[in-house]
């Protein structure tokens, strides 16, 4: 399951547009995988590492 899919499982109400505007998932092609580069959603808190594990 990708990071995006994990986040969507936690917050099904998120839209694709949210991932363009207030949330940024990023992968720097350095072997470290996907990560949350920005989380500025006005109402939903950033998921914890435990929630994403």
């Amino acid at each position, binding site marked *: 399951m*990708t990071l995006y899919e994990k986040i969507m499982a936690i917050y099904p109400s998120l839209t*694709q547009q949210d991932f363009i505007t207030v949330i940024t998932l990023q992968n720097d092609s350095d072997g470290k995988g996907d990560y949350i580069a920005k989380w500025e959603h006005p109402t939903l808190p950033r998921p914890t590492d435990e929630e994403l594990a």
Partner: protein
Amino acid sequence: MSGVPYTFGTATTSIPLSNLDSNFVTPITIGNASVALGNTITSIGNLTLTNPTIIGGTSNVSSTSITNGTSNVSISSSGGNINVVTGGTIATFPQATGTVMVSGNMPAFSAYPSTTFTASSATWTKIPANTKEFDTNSNYDNATNYRFTPTVSGYYQISGCWSLASGTSTRSLCAIYKNGTLFKQGLDTPTTFTTGSNISTLINLNGSTDYVEFYLYIAGTGTQTVNAGAGSTWFQAVLVRAA
């Protein structure tokens, strides 16, 4: 007068012989105001001049270089242009501040991923362009960071393109990141099925610490596979003009 190889028969000021030796092998000073040498041709070898002024006329040089070691050599004009004439053709350097660029010091590169790679949905993914087509100034890192860090400051045209090899995408984007932050976003195609995106933009880079990278964004299900090869997915930059 023995040992003095020249005659100063018309000299208007006496020259103490004590200032000369028989072979002029020690430094001497001639005059304290102005000195004229010859009226037809005067040849002087290994001459060092400090702050000379050429008043007028045409100065001819033959197989001569103007050098200053590793320091800069300045040719200046206080009010006019500087013309360099070669083969009867004039290149004019106008009154302007800046750096004249020639092909040898204008960075340009093109790179592409050698193999297909996957990208997670809704995730900005740096394109691992690990193969260079060219890199004129060795400013592109194709081994670790896939970033272009030009060593000449100026305005750069940055271009990139990617295309989908397989997967189902409902939104395709790309962007140029400057110093790790999204700086310019490319074509956004939020349709039911998309196959890629491209971007072309002009960015000022400082020639030392500034760098740019190329990221793509795919929205769909699961992971998507992106095409490889110079003709499908590529990242390029070229210096348009110096700062």
